[in-house]
């Protein structure tokens, strides 16, 4: 039996029960209730920040960058199964259409869930102003924290479509679903200027983004890449090694305006991988540490945050993927320290339409 058939059955059967009509009796009793003064509760208004439409490009940029440029792990050419890539690319194409729709639907769906009966309207914590921008990175963090360290990359050096090199790699998300990427590029070394440049594109399903890169031949600790949707919408990624820390600085440019810059670091302690995110330019502020934990055999993300300002605030955010509906969403339980926790939902990019479900999704279901 399919999920949707089961849910329809439950719903239909529940409607077969004849529930008595007590409305007249209730009204009669209600009229005897003492009259109370009506107090209008203040309404909460959520000002949503600009759409998250760039998170996909951003994810691509970040993931590709991690694969493409990792001085500690030189790329080793291997043979790639092209049939598999073509098949998976076909599957991924569909989800790109859903991607923006998912975000739009979810943005309409924001509300607090606590305070049903007895709680007064709580003060709005600072994290509430930042959470939309933090949510842009959830999809990225899922993949950075769940994928193999080198994303299982394979380099194909067979020339095709005008490109001499084809780098294939795979990510895995919290639902254990894999997404495949293909970066096609040509590299030109200029030893006179101690510089190399790369030009090409990256394919995820039917989506393709132009990629350019520039770096120093003798100093592999600096490289800049640009992933372009078009001339005025792109993501710049700059990699540097500073004080033994690998830092990725990411700038998002929308309609020619740089809307956000963040720093991203990765760290692994006792087999626990963490990714650190700092907002350094743009509307958002704060530092966020992402890691994955497993609860009830389900993988979840945990975010520790610290926001400084006129008053500082810290707290935790638990992120689960709710895949019980037709479209998977993020459920965020936001727990500001010393304040009332609350839950919101956010759209989740499928980034390639759940191309290859794995075995690690015990609670997984779709209806």
């Amino acid at each position: 039996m399919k999920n949707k058939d089961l849910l329809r059955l439950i719903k239909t059967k529940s409607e077969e029960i004849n529930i008595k009509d007590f409305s007249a009796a209730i009204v009669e009793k209600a009229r005897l209730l003492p009259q109370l003064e009506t107090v209008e509760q203040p309404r909460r208004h959520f000002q949503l920040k600009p759409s998250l439409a760039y998170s996909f490009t951003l994810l691509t940029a970040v993931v590709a960058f991690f694969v493409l440029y990792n001085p500690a792990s030189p790329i080793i050419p291997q043979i790639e199964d092209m049939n598999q890539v073509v098949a998976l690319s076909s599957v991924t194409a569909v989800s790109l259409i859903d991607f923006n729709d998912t975000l739009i639907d979810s943005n309409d769906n924001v509300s607090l869930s606590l305070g049903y009966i007895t709680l007064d309207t709580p003060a709005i914590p600072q994290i509430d102003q930042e959470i939309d921008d933090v949510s842009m990175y959830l999809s990225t963090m899922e993949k950075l924290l769940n994928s193999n360290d080198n994303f299982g990359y394979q380099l194909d050096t067979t020339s095709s479509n005008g490109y001499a090199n084809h780098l294939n790699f795979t990510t895995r998300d919290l639902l254990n679903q894999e997404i495949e990427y293909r970066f096609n590029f040509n590299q030109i070394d200029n030893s006179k200027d101690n510089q190399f440049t790369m030009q090409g594109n990256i394919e995820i399903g039917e989506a393709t983004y132009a990629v350019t890169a520039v770096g120093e031949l003798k100093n592999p600790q600096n490289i800049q890449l640009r992933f372009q949707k078009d001339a005025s919408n792109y993501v710049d990624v700059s990699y540097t090694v500073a004080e033994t820390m690998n830092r990725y600085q990411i700038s998002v440019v929308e309609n020619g305006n740089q809307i956000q810059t963040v720093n991203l670091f990765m760290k692994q302690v006792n087999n626990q991988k963490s990714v650190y995110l700092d907002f350094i330019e743009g509307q958002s502020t704060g530092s966020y540490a992402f890691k994955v934990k497993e609860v009830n055999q389900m993988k979840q993300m945990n975010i520790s945050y610290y926001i400084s300002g006129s008053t500082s605030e810290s707290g935790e955010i638990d992120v689960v993927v709710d895949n019980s509906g037709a479209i998977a969403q993020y459920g965020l339980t936001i727990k500001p320290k010393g304040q009332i926790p609350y839950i919101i939902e956010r759209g989740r990019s499928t980034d390639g339409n759940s191309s290859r479900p794995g075995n690690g999704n015990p609670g997984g279901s779709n209806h």
Partner: protein
Amino acid sequence: MDKIHVIIEELKQRDYKSFDTFYNLTKNQVFYAIISIVKDQAEAEDLMQEVYMKFLEKIDDYRSNSNPYAYLSTIGRNLAINSYNKNKRVVVSQELIESFPAEKIEEPNEDIFKILDLLDPNEREIVTLHVINDLKFREIVPIVDKPLGTVLWIYNKAIKKLKEKAVDFI
């Protein structure tokens, strides 16, 4: 503003002319929130009246941006647990759901109750609130006082169980 919130605003002004419409829009949610706990239709119907009276008594506390179905489900659940505690002289509320005695359960005639009986109490309540009462998981969390991840896990487990066992009711 949708129809139900318009009626609620009227009710806040002690204008009950559309209460029957309000009742018909919400009675299923209230009934199933209660019966997923007390499992007795007559008792559930008695408690329904209490739920609506409680709602009308405290209507000034109702926040305009709340989901009325979730709000009523919460009242229904609380009253059902209180009723059970009263009858059984049990004070613990959260563990209560886990410990419904077998002798309390009568063999149901209706398919929906038979289907829900395939589930354990936690599963039954979450499936009822989500599938029958149309509540979002984030709205169920404060009602059942469990983390979102746990609610999703219980729900998925329940659906898996029902997919295997509910075929007989098609």
